[in-house]
């Protein structure tokens, strides 16, 4: 919402001077503190006193220059002035704005003497944009021309110069009061404050703050003898969409330009002046917040308006030339209320506009209109919001209606419109229109003001301060509220607050509380400390997550975060075979599903780094992945039982995974496995085993499931070389470890009780077995561990040998067993016995022989 200071001052007598930087900043701070957030402060009308009217006397080429010319002007001084100019849109004899040396143009732009191509320029001819009068930068602002009509560059509201004009006259004097220096505040209005979508509402808030009166326009309109109802009719057939529609009839309307002040204000507020009728409608909307619609009464069949709901599929071509289909449910909503779009029709039931949103093309008012019917409506906010969404159209009107306009301000708006049209005609020197007497009025739902019981004590309690009954009225009433004590004073702080018609956001006590807070000032309200009665601590999963991140970082992996909205094809490339959760409204096809795994994202990150010549790195991520409940679409074993965290009927499956991608030099399945061992050891996991498994995207013969306490926690191993290729990665091998965070959190841990450490010497036994390739080393280790019994401190694989010394299809596995008793030194005999026990256990249980 763009708010010119001069307009604001018309509605409340602020003393802020637009030229005083400090006063303007103070007003901006006040607006901010009210929640009317100042997003910009623009100074306009500056420098217009330094610029004078000048006539072009001569235009000449400059040698070796094809963009600039030498121009001599008469600026009213004793001598003609020579300038260099780069614009070509003017001719000898034109009246143009001239900024002499020393003039300061908007934006602190000081004009100095310059020399270009050997020609001295003693000033500057100005464009409308340089003077901040218009957006036109096509050339110099030509204010008058000796012969023929002037060019199109004269901004709205600027009168044209005739030949007898005084040269050297300051532009400010020529333009008049409408172009006085001014300040435009650009305010961001919150969605719950429709009352501040107009100058009056903002004036009301600021007036209350600084303690000034609000001076709303009180339009005075002289009315003709005939009643409006003689000329036109209005009816409302859809009370659920439109609560009231009033009409005003203007006879003998002439199309004229708006007075300079009206045109200038519209321009500053960001609207383009058209003619006095359209301008008056826009001006009323900006000033009072009430959108209106003027119709050419003679083109309106049946000379009347009828408001009804649209039939399913009914079409209308709106002012912007687009065909809109009504009576359809909105995208993204389950509700389809038939007949929820409001149509304005003529008296013969032909649509002429979408109520509250945009007029129809057929109803566009032309300059020939001589009889005008002004429509002023109150449309139901929810209905307008829904329709605007369905037809995908937001207009200045719909924004206001969907938030709620002032139900009690309709008549004032209608009269203000008439007053402005009459004033414009008088200013232009034509006969003003005759205003038919009275309103035509169709009210389908009567307005009942809302009265809220409010406890001053409760208001104070929520704000952390004391509020007296009397204070409530003092704070609220300047905003238009009426505060009463229904049962007289001293009734325990129960008051009745009547909400003004322009404040649809205030519905219950707590809304009144916010108004009180705003009036006192958020900064002025007290501050206190609230202490939690709890001891703050992280949950086990949160602690685990933090520890894991540090463990993985300790392994040299950087923590990545990759996006969760991904390309389904990319998921497939990265071996994700779960049923992906699709978006209903993706932005692009490449980002249309939720990730089902972490690997594709991390591979993408690795590829990014490769493209910047960083192929050797380790990355991890801990984050949520998503899947539709049920089994995988393909035969991948990632649907192994127990992999789902919790089945919820209302939401897709969401799991938090830990992914570690190892693409450093020499990284492979072994590196991944050792990473897992570090994790398992650091977390003190117990009962951990590996189960060979095949996994989409992973190397079929170098992958295992990680199991703890019988639950599959995830997968560890090497990526399928094809997966690496798919991602254009150059590493010959890459390791991958993926764990389910919440399963990991539930995995069994080694007991907390300390295990005593022996003080006696230990004995080592080295055993090497030739073991068939089909037997996993882990099985040998388990057999050794069991056979070795209580006295065994550790079993460690220390050598694996394949080669000529062992038979094909097998390998030598060398283990070192360390034996130790807590209470004595083991005898040679005891150790020898344990040794034979171990050998026997392995040889009998597995296809293995002791290597001699």
């Amino acid at each position, binding site marked *: 919402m763009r708010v010119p200071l001069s307009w604001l001052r018309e509605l409340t007598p602020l003393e802020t001077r637009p030229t005083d930087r400090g006063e303007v900043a103070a007003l901006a701070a006040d607006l*901010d503190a*009210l*929640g009317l957030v100042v997003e910009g402060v623009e100074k306009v009308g500056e420098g217009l006193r330094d610029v004078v009217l000048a006539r072009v006397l001569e235009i000449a080429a400059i040698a070796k220059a094809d963009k600039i010319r030498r121009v001599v002007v008469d600026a009213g001084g004793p001598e003609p002035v020579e300038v260099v100019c780069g614009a070509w849109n003017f001719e000898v004899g034109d009246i143009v704005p001239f900024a002499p040396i020393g003039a300061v143009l908007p934006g602190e732009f000081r004009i100095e003497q310059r020399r270009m191509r050997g020609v001295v320029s003693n000033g500057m001819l100005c464009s409308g944009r340089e003077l901040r009068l218009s957006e036109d930068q096509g050339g110099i602002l030509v204010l008058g021309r000796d012969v023929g009509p002037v060019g199109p560059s004269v901004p709205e509201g600027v009168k044209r110069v005739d030949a007898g004009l005084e040269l050297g006259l300051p532009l400010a004097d020529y333009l008049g009061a409408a172009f006085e220096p001014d300040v435009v505040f650009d305010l961001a209005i*919150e*969605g719950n404050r429709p009352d501040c979508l107009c100058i009056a509402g903002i004036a009301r808030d600021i007036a209350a703050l600084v303690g000034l009166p609000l001076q709303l326009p009180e339009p005075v309109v002289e009315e003709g003898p005939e009643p409006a109802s003689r000329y036109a009719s209005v009816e409302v057939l859809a009370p659920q969409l439109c609560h009231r529609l009033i009409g005003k009839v203007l006879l003998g309307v002439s199309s004229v330009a708006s007075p300079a002040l009206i045109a200038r204000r519209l321009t500053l507020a960001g609207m383009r002046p058209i003619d006095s009728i359209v301008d008056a409608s826009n001006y009323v909307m900006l000033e009072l917040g009430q959108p209106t619609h003027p119709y050419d009464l003679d083109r309106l069949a049946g000379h009347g308006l009828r408001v009804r709901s649209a039939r399913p599929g009914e079409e209308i071509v709106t002012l912007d030339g687009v065909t809109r289909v009504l009576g359809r449910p909105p*995208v*993204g*909503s*389950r509700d389809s209320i038939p007949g929820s779009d409001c149509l304005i029709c003529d008296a013969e039931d032909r649509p002429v506009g979408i109520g509250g949103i945009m007029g129809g093309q057929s109803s566009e008012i032309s300059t020939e209109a001589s009889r005008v019917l002004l429509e002023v409506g109150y449309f139901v906010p*929810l209905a307008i*919001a829904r329709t605007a*969404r369905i037809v995908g159209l937001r207009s200045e009107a719909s924004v206001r209606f969907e938030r709620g306009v002032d139900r009690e301000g309709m008549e004032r708006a209608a009269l203000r419109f008439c007053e402005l049209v009459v004033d414009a005609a008088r200013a232009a020197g034509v006969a003003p229109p005759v205003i038919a007497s009275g309103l035509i009025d169709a009210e389908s739902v009567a307005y009942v003001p809302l009265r809220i019981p409010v406890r001053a004590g409760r208001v104070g*309690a*929520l704000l952390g301060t004391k509020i007296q009954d009397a204070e409530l009225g003092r704070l609220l009433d300047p905003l238009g509220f009426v505060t009463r004590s229904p049962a007289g004073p001293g009734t325990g702080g129960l008051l009745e607050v009547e909400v003004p018609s322009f404040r649809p956001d205030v519905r*219950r006590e*707590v*809304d009144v509380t*916010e108004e009180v*807070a*705003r009036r006192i000032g*958020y900064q002025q*309200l007290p*501050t*206190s*400390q*609230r202490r*939690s*009665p709890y001891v*703050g*601590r*992280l949950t086990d999963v*949160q602690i685990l997550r933090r520890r894991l*991140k540090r463990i*993985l970082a300790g392994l*040299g*992996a*950087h*923590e*990545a975060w*990759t996006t*969760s909205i991904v390309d389904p094809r990319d998921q497939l490339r990265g071996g994700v075979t779960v049923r992906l*959760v*699709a*978006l*209903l*409204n*993706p932005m692009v096809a490449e*980002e249309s599903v*939720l990730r089902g795994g972490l690997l594709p994202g991390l591979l993408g*990150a690795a590829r*990014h780094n490769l493209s910047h010549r960083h192929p050797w790195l*380790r*990355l*991890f991520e801990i*984050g*949520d992945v998503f899947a539709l409940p049920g089994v995988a679409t393909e035969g991948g074993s990632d649907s192994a039982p127990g992999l789902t965290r919790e089945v919820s009927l*209302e*939401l*897709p499956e*969401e799991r938090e995974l830990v992914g570690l991608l190892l693409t450093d030099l020499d990284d492979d399945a072994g590196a991944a496995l050792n990473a897992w061992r570090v994790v398992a050891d650091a977390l003190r996991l117990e009962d951990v085993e590996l189960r060979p498994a095949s996994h989409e995207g992973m190397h079929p013969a170098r992958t295992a499931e990680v199991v703890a306490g019988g639950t599959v926690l995830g997968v560890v191993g090497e990526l399928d070389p094809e997966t690496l290729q798919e991602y254009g990665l150059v590493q010959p091998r890459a390791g991958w470890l993926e764990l389910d965070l919440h399963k990991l959190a539930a995995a069994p841990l080694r007991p907390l009780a300390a295990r005593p450490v022996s003080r006696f010497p230990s004995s080592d036994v080295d055993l090497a077995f030739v073991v068939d390739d089909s037997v996993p080393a882990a099985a040998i280790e388990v057999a050794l561990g069991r056979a070795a019994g209580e006295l065994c401190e550790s079993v460690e694989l220390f050598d694996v040998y394949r080669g000529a010394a062992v038979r094909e299809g097998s390998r030598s596995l060398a283990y070192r067993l360390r034996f130790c008793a807590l209470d004595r030194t083991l005898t040679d005999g005891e150790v020898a016995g344990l040794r034979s026990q171990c050998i026997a256990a392995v040889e009998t249980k597995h296809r293995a022989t002791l290597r001699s």
Partner: protein
Amino acid sequence: MTTASAEEMAQLEADATAALAGAGDIAQLDERERVAFRSKRSRFAEMYQKLGSTPPDERRVLGRLLNELRGRLEVVANARRAELVAAARIERLAADRLDLTEVLPGRLQGHLNLVTQTREALEDVFVGMGYEIAEGPEVETGWRNFGALNIGEDHPARSPLDTFYVDFGEPWSVLLRPHTSPVQIRLLERGVLPIYAVAPGRTYRKDTPDSTHLPVFHQIEGLVVDRGVTFADLKGTIDTFVRAVFGDGTRTRLRPAYFPFTEPSAEFEMSCVICGGDGCRTCSGVGWIELGGCGMVHPAVFEATGVDPEEWTGFAFGFGIDRIAFMRHGISDLRVMIENDVRFLAQF
């Protein structure tokens, strides 16, 4: 004692001392020691043998003198030996010299992501204030995300232009949460009061990626519900955690705003961390930086979750985690976050 033998002894001591002290290495020292007094054919041994032919009185004196001489020579030899051993050790270690700057680099620790670092720092502040860290799913129901938060059916935030919806269950009923606020609803639904909690997490909005927007980002949300919680408490809490996170000198201020799930609502700002409030480029010259939204929990939210708003009141606040990280590190383009470039990650 004859003068001759005294002279002889002095001579022997002078020669032997010089020889021992001048030994160039251990082998030479061993040899000279032998020649001086250890060998049976050494001059010292010869003099000792002569003792037998000396008169008993003289023998006793001479014997003592010889023993003393031997003691002195041994001291000299041992001293020289210690010197030589030390020198040899130094030489041996010098030969083992390593230029420490030529050592090949090994694998360093990885770095935690900026988002994690910032999130944990924020979490720690709130844990210190006695808050729990609550979490909720990123895919949420429309009810928890909008309905229960008093966001009407026709609120623009529900529009498919702003919020991502997922294809699950009833069409347009399940979505990617555009804020962490549904965790408030989960906390209230849990029914354990009072509540002192913050909820950090990933959030989603339909924004085209540019230097200041990503469709995927991170937020942290606070919720306090207790008896007698006031707007003044909200102001104090915001002030407390902002100072804990950004330093004691940081000031905060609130200004009116609108959120459907709080009333009164406010935006909260802090004094610019770069210029301290004087105005600079980071704060667009105003001295204040907008952090997030906050307010008193709307009674409608309590009503939706079965909490009595007459008995319980509360406040909520929320702000972006990523934005704080960027502010702290002077990062101007958000997109660097999703690239996961090690040249970026390894900096923090």
